C-alpha cells in the first residue's frame, strides 16, 4: 500500500492569530484514514495553492504559483471516528498570503504524510524539545505523540523567539515561581512537558538565545546524555547551535530541516541536504523531502 497520497481535506476553520500567523484545521474524510493514520510527528504535507485567490489588497508582490507549498502538521488527532489535522503557518509571501483566503467549508488538496518523522526509542527517558519560531510547529505534534504513546517519558520544551509576539501560536500563561514571572506554554504543558522560553528582547521568559537556555537548564537539572534525545526545529543557525551543543556534550539530537521544495516527494532533487557518510570522507546530498525533514544532527554537514 502506498505511504502517501493526494488527500482532499475539508476545512473546519482557518483562523488568523495575530497579524501574520494562521491556523488551518482540516477534517480528513474517511477514505483517507488508511493513509493519514500512519502520520508520525515531524512529517509534513504539500498543500496545493494554485486554485486559491488572493486577498483584495495583497501585501506581497503577486505570484501565480503552480507548485504546492510544504507545511508541517502541528497536530494530527487520530481516533476511530475522525482524523483532524492542524497546520500553523506564517504569512511570509504570496503563497501563504493566498492561504489566508481559505474558508471553513472549502476543500484543500494536499499530499501527505511526507518525509521522515522524529523517532522515539523505547529506552528514551528524557526528550528535550528545542524550537525556534515556526520551528515549534512539528515539535508540538511530537509532544502530542510522546504524551499519547509514551506517557512515562519526561519532556522538557525550550522555545525561542525574537519577542513574545513571535509566539502567537501558543497559549501562554504567566505565573510566579520563586518570586519571578514565568511564562509557560499550554500547548506543551498540556502534554506534560515543562516549558522554558527565551526571547531576544526578554519580552517573555529569559532574555537571550534558546541555546543558552538549553545549556543552562541541562546543567542546572543535571540532564545526562544517556537515554536523552534532543529534538530541534527552527531557523538553521539555531539548529546548528543546538547540534553543536549536542555534539560537544554527547547528546543525541534529531533536527528537522527546511529547504525550498518543488515536489516534496523525491522527484526533483531540489531539496538537497549535505550529509556525511559513516566511514567516508566524501559527503552526499540527501533529500530533505524523503530522507528528511528529520535527520540525525550528526550526519548533517552544517
Amino acid at each position, binding site marked *: 500500500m*502506498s*505511504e*502517501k*497520497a*493526494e488527500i482532499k481535506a475539508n476545512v473546519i476553520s482557518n483562523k488568523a492569530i495575530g497579524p501574520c500567523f494562521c491556523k488551518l484545521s482540516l477534517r480528513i474524510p474517511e477514505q483517507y484514514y488508511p493513509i493519514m493514520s500512519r502520520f508520525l510527528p515531524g512529517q509534513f504535507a504539500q498543500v*496545493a495553492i*494554485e486554485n486559491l485567490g488572493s486577498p483584495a489588497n495583497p501585501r506581497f508582490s*503577486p*505570484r*501565480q*504559483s*503552480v*507548485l*504546492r507549498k510544504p507545511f508541517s502538521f502541528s497536530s494530527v488527532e487520530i481516533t476511530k471516528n475522525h482524523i483532524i489535522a492542524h497546520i500553523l503557518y506564517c504569512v511570509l509571501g504570496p*503563497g501563504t498570503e493566498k492561504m489566508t483566503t481559505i474558508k471553513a467549508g472549502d476543500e484543500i488538496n494536499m*499530499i501527505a504524510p511526507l518525509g521522515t518523522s522524529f523517532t522515539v526509542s523505547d529506552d528514551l527517558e528524557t526528550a528535550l524539545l528545542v524550537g525556534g519560531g515556526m520551528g515549534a510547529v512539528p515539535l508540538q505534534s511530537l509532544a502530542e505523540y510522546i504524551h499519547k504513546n509514551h506517557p512515562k517519558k519526561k519532556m522538557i520544551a525550550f522555545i525561542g523567539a525574537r519577542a513574545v509576539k513571535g509566539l502567537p501560536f501558543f497559549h501562554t500563561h504567566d505565573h510566579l515561581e520563586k518570586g519571578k514571572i514565568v511564562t509557560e506554554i499550554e500547548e506543551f504543558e498540556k502534554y506534560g512537558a515543562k516549558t522554558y522560553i527565551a526571547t531576544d528582547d526578554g519580552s517573555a521568559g529569559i532574555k537571550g538565545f534558546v541555546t543558552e537556555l538549553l545549556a543552562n537548564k541541562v546543567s542546572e537539572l543535571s540532564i545526562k546524555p544517556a537515554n536523552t534525545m534532543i529534538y530541534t526545529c527552527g531557523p538553521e543557525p539555531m539548529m546548528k547551535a543546538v547540534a553543536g551543543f549536542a555534539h560537544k556534550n554527547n547528546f543525541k539530537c534529531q533536527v528537522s530541516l527546511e*529547504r*525550498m*521544495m*518543488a*515536489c*516534496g*516527494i*523525491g*522527484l*526533483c*532533487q*531540489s*531539496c*538537497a*541536504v*549535505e550529509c556525511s557518510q559513516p566511514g567516508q570522507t566524501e*559527503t*552526499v*546530498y540527501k533529500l530533505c523531502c524523503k530522507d528528511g525533514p528529520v535527520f540525525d544532527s550528526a550526519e548533517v554537514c552544517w
Partner: protein
Amino acid sequence: MHSKTDISVDFAGVRLKNPVMTASGTCGYVDELDDFMDINLLGGFITKSITLLPRKGNPVPRIVETNSGMLNAIGLANIGVDRFISEKIPKIREKNVPFFVNIAGWQIDDYVAVTARLADEDAIAGFELNISCPNVKKGGITFGTDPVLIKKITAEVKSAAGKKPLIVKLTPGVTDISATAAAAVEGGADGLSLINTFTAMVIDIESRKPVLANRTGGLSGPAIKPIAVYLVNKVYKEVAKPAGIPILGLGGIRTASDAIEFIIAGATAVSVGTATFAQPRCCLEIIEGIADYCGRHGIKNISELTGSLQ
C-alpha cells in the same frame, strides 16, 4: 458513446501505448512515482540525466518559483551510471513500460561512455541526449547551440547506442532551432525532443543576490508553453516532417488540452515535467483526456492528429 481511438504511437521505432511520457529530471529514476500511479500505464518513462560519474549537483537553493513556472539549477545531481545499472536497472526490469535513459556529460567521450555501458541493457528502450542543460557550467549548453558539435556528438553517441534509438533534446536558446534540429538529424538522431528550459534568474531584492546558489537556473512550466508550441511547430515543418523523424514535445504541459496543442503542432509524443510536481498523477489524467478528445472528434488513430495544424 465515443468511437474508440487507437492512441498508441510509434516513437523512433518504439511502440508507446499512448503518447505521454514523463520528462527527464522530474520523475526520478524508476519507482519514485509508484505511490501515485502505476507507471506501466504511461506511454514511456524518461529517467533523470545520468552521467558517467555520480554527481552531487549544485548547492541549495536549487529551485525558486516564478509566475506560472519555476527555475531549477539541480546541476545534474545523479547516482552515476554504475549505480544506475546496479540499483535501478533491476527495478526497471520489473516495469512494463519503455524506459528512455537521458544521458548527460561534459565532453563527447562522457556521453559515449555512458551510452556504451547501457547499449546492451534489454531493460532500456532508448536514449535521450541532453545537450541542452543550462545549469552545468562546463558543458551542456555549448553543445546545444552549435550545429557542428551537435552533429558530431549525435553521430558518436548514435554509434555507441547500437540498435537503440537516440532522441536528441534541444535547447530553445538559439537563434534558429531548425538549424540545431537539422544538425541532430544529420548526425543520425531517431527523434527530437524539445524544449529544454530557458536560462533565467530571480533576484532577492533584499539581499541583492540571485535566489539560486547557482545564480541562474532553467525556466520551466506553463509560462513557457506558447514558445514551446511554436518551436515544435517550426521544427516539425522545417525539419522533422521532411526528414520523417518524430518529435517529443514538452514545455509547460499540465492538461490534456496542452498536450493536444503540442500534438497538433507536430509532436508524435509529449512529456510532462514541472506539472508532475504539483499533480503527481497528471500524466494519467492527460492520457485519459487525449483519448476522450480523440473519441469526441472521431479520430480513429492519433497519428491523424499529429501535425494537423491548419
